[in-house]
């Protein structure tokens, strides 16, 4: 019927993404244990951002879903980021 064909992600893709996620996790632990002060914090959050993009796109299937879902998720993420930035600006320049 009108049912669209559904993209089937292969097990291989999932396992590949999983190993990438584990490598990134260990990487962020390593970076912060060597202590690079402020940069380590930024790097750990950057790695978290990369990891969450993988989870959203592949595990949560956004890459293969209708464009509408990607746009909505993007807007919500942007909203949270903007609120955090505005709050921090308020504290830094008070």
């Amino acid at each position: 019927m009108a049912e669209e064909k559904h993209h089937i992600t292969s097990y291989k893709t999932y396992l590949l993404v999983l190993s990438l996620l584990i490598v990134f996790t260990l990487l962020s632990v390593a970076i912060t244990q060597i202590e690079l002060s402020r940069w380590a914090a930024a790097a750990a959050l950057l790695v978290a951002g990369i990891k969450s993009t993988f989870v959203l796109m592949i595990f949560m299937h956004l890459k293969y879903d209708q464009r509408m879902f990607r746009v909505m998720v993007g807007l919500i993420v942007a909203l949270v980021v903007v609120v955090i930035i505005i709050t921090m600006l308020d504290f830094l320049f008070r």
Partner: protein
Amino acid sequence: MSVVHRDDIGSKLGMWLFIFTEILLFGGLFITYVVYRYLHQEAFHLASQELDVAIGTINTIILLISSATIAMSITAIQQKKKKLTLALIATTILLAIVFLVNKYFEWGAKFEHGIFPGSEYLDQLGFGDVLFFGLYFFMTGLHAFHIIIGIAVLGFMYYYVKTDRLTHDNFQLLENGGLYWHLVDLIWIFLFPLFYLIA
């Protein structure tokens, strides 16, 4: 002739809208954390060293694997592999329970050291430590609460697949359950560096 009305995209959209409210809920808590961290840098720095990085890393990897297994169950159900689907959902639930057991030991160790909300020991340490551990227990506790709900949700998915209510051409509910589980993983991806790593 009976017609069963089904709207898979609408169903998924509803699930995503719920996930957005969850992101905003935890987003608000992250902002609270960032602000207090900025106001009490010294105390947050010292307090976060109390946390066990090893157990945090293990729990992160457990959640990542469980996220992959529930994602793979959706591939399995589309390939009409019912047994594999059930095995993958069961594995996810098992990993979720292991995560909670680790959490139990982690929190237990903190309690033994007299670190829990409202403890005398914590009061002596000062305001910054009270805030750090208050946020730690509340945010990881709220996350653990989501894990418990996730176990219940996935338990229903297991039952539905087993009784053929979810099949290769009707599995949106399993996908929605999977989305919820990935959200739990997603939140932990940010909780882990914020509390355990950035010292």
